[in-house]
């Protein structure tokens, strides 16, 4: 130790006041990350209004119907929350790897495999206490999702394969695998028109939250969003992830276990998406069938980007998107528009949000003030 260089200056000057002349930066920065997406949403809404006018429909009627369909009554609010709950989890499948700078878009694969794993273990274990079975189903679903997305992470970290492409292609493989198993080895002979696995049994299904029609998947999603917010922003693990995402070379220079961080973050994201699939089986379908591949994984991408990959911001964004989806039926009936109209709006929002990324740092007022 006697040969170690301990520089005196760092300690002797420790009490000197740091020259600070831009105390407000932190708040302006936060405001920027709210205003820019807000601007994008307004632009997307304007574009969609134009689209409606071209179809001879009134944008105001549309807003009114969306409001009523999504939040107008206790029923519609519950419907919105139901639609939002798988999206909370699939958005995390994008947002967690995104902390390391990865763009994972194959959450759909983890959803179907998670649902399949959960549905597959239930019938052989019939007879054990429902709560225990549900826990085991959750573990199975999360593991399946974790392995699938973790594999995309492993390919990235170890073999340098682009994770966006590999996760998307893995999702196709997962869906094909799912179809093969559901229509083949695990098919319930009783399911004629819609090939499905065997029923997990009504007694083993999740119940509803007291006084509502909402299943516990919503609670899982909210807990997961909060827990991962804490993990990412309050722990050393999360800090290491964000360093890796911000600069791979800096992370390597600091000796951070980059490979491990990438695989863990991808596996955690995959576990979330797998849980979404399990909930879909245990709370809605009661079995695994093609309804699992309903696009939750893809909608999660949109939400994660809307939330700027912040797990807490995923909650309100999932509710907004859930509300849009929930009002789709009403719009179809009242405005005589196809169901896909809502998808057009979603697409416009996505493009606007992606385009708005270029606006960060463009407005001088948000930027750090220079030294006088």
């Amino acid at each position, binding site marked *: *130790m*006697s*040969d*170690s*260089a*301990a*520089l005196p*200056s*760092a300690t002797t*000057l*420790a009490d*000197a*006041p*740091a*020259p*600070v*002349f*831009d*105390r407000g*930066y*932190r708040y302006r*920065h936060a405001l920027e990350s709210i205003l820019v997406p807000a601007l994008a949403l307004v632009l997307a809404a304007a574009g969609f209004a134009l689209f409606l006018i071209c179809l001879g429909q009134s944008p105001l009627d549309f807003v009114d119907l969306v409001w009523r369909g999504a939040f107008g009554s206790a029923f519609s609010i519950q419907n919105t929350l139901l639609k939002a709950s798988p999206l909370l989890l699939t958005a995390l499948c994008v947002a967690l790897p995104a902390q390391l700078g990865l763009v994972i878009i194959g959450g759909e694969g983890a959803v179907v495999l998670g649902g399949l794993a959960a549905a597959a273990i239930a019938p052989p274990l019939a007879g054990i206490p429902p709560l225990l079975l549900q826990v085991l189903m959750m573990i199975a679903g999360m593991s399946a999702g974790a392995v699938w997305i973790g594999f995309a992470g492993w390919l990235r970290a170890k073999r340098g394969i682009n994770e966006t492409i590999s996760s998307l292609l893995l999702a196709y493989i997962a869906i094909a695998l799912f179809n093969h198993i559901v229509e083949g080895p695990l098919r319930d002979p009783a399911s004629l028109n819609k090939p499905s696995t065997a029923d997990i049994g009504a007694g083993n299904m999740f119940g509803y939250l007291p006084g509502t029609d909402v299943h516990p998947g919503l609670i899982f999603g909210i807990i997961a969003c909060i827990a991962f917010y804490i993990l990412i*922003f*309050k*722990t*050393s*693990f*999360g*800090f*290491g992830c*964000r*360093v890796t995402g*911000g*600069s791979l*070379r*800096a992370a*390597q*220079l*600091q*000796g*951070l*276990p980059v490979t491990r961080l990438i695989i863990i973050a991808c596996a955690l994201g995959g576990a979330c998406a797998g849980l979404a699939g399990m909930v879909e089986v245990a709370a809605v379908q009661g079995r695994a069938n093609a309804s699992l591949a309903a696009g939750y994984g893809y909608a999660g991408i949109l939400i994660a980007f809307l939330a700027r990959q912040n797990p807490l911001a995923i909650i309100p964004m999932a509710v907004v998107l859930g509300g849009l989806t929930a009002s789709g039926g009403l719009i179809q009936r009242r405005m005589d528009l196809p169901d896909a109209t809502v998808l057009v709006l979603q697409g416009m929002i996505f493009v606007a949000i992606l385009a708005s990324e270029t606006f960060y740092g463009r407005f*001088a007022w948000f*930027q*750090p*003030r*220079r*030294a006088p």
Partner: protein
Amino acid sequence: MKAIGVEAVNVTKRFGAFTALDDVSLKVRPGTVHALLGENGAGKSTLVKCLLGYNLAEVGSFIVDGREAHITQPQDAGRLGIGMVYQHFTLVPSMTVAENLVMARPDVPRVINWSVERARLATFMAGMPFKIPLDVPVDSLAAGERQKAEILKQLYLERRLLVLDEPTSTLTPQESQEVLGLVRSLVQAGTITVIIITHKLKEVAAFADDVSVLRRGKMVGGGAVAALSATDLTTLMIGEKHAPAIIERLGAPGATPRLAVHNLATLGDHGRPGLNIDAIVVHPREIVGIAGVSGNGQTALLEVLGGQRFATSGTIAIADKPYHARRDEAFALKVRVLPEEPLRNGCVPSMSVEDNASLRRFDRNDDGSPRRWLDRKRMSARAKTMIAAYGIRTPSKDVPIAALSGGNVQRAILARELDGAVDVFIVANPCFGLDVKAVADIRARIVAARNGGAAVLLISEDLDEIRELSDRILVMRDGAIVFEAPAGADAQMIGSHMVGHG
């Protein structure tokens, strides 16, 4: 073709609230080399960018060849015969010199008749005082040749006034002499006028006729080079009467090796040879300088030592313990690294100064045990201490570190890496592109770390820096250590080993 003069009259340029150029006037006589001297951020680049049409001055005008010129875009400057050679090369590396030249023409035809073009190029080359092979890809040329090809391109485009932005920053001493000598001869022949942006005083003294000095956006002085001493120029540049002194190296190096690298080899990039190092040994209280021309394996060496690249064979030992650049090892053995271009290699640009200040320590308690939860209070206190102790100019500790100037990023990373006890300190090009004050500051810190007992490995492409700071000098060429020299060895001799004529 004849050299032209240019004059800037009361040019003012603002970026938002920041005044980059404040009422600057400058007169460049035709057929001369005019040096534009100043620290980083003094406004040199802004001034030439206004002249070249990349920036538009709010107030003031330019007079080119005796006539007032309206330069609003780069093409305008090109038509007037004004061109620029950038610090970083702009030729397409995978294309040949001939292809680069022809493609650069503003009137390049849709279908190129290469036999016609070749004939034109041959006539053009016949009139040039130097030769460059036209049919080899640019990336197979050495740095000096490339720089010459850049100049050649400007001549081919019939530019009569060239702006050279730090033209020698990536060249060896020999190459610098050659390129600047060439420029000088073109100027003396009356072919071109040259404005050279630099902060190397030696080059100003040896190659420029006139000099103008900028400081904080203002023209602070200048005149004929012959009439000004180096001290005068330094004073003008930094506004102080004396150049900051370098801290002396105190105490002799220790006897037992602290850092030992043996038989280190890596794979090469793009067909170039990888590392093939027999031995590098650094003792406590010793600075070992690694000199070499850019691209001879210095980056790979730093990357291996910093954990950014795998070695295919060889051993690294710190105080006789094997070292693989893992986080726990670096922490236990007190190894710190200051990489070149720290904004790209050593910190997270989008994260705050505070976060970047804690990259070494965020997952450790003071006693070295692992820490699961971030301690924001300590991180904040640490950042404040470093900002004060190293004089880091930043709006606040919460701004992204990318918002800081190059010198201040360097100070911040240095503060982080020298925080606490340091046994081994690995540094690469620590002063590249920094102003005089920051350079003196950072070199003093490095010497202080050495005097405190650290073993310092200094990898630098600036031979003057190596000679000034090192106890021992190693020369690296083609990925191998080819020569060892004691402190204060002759620069020409080291330079000849750098290029392989030794």
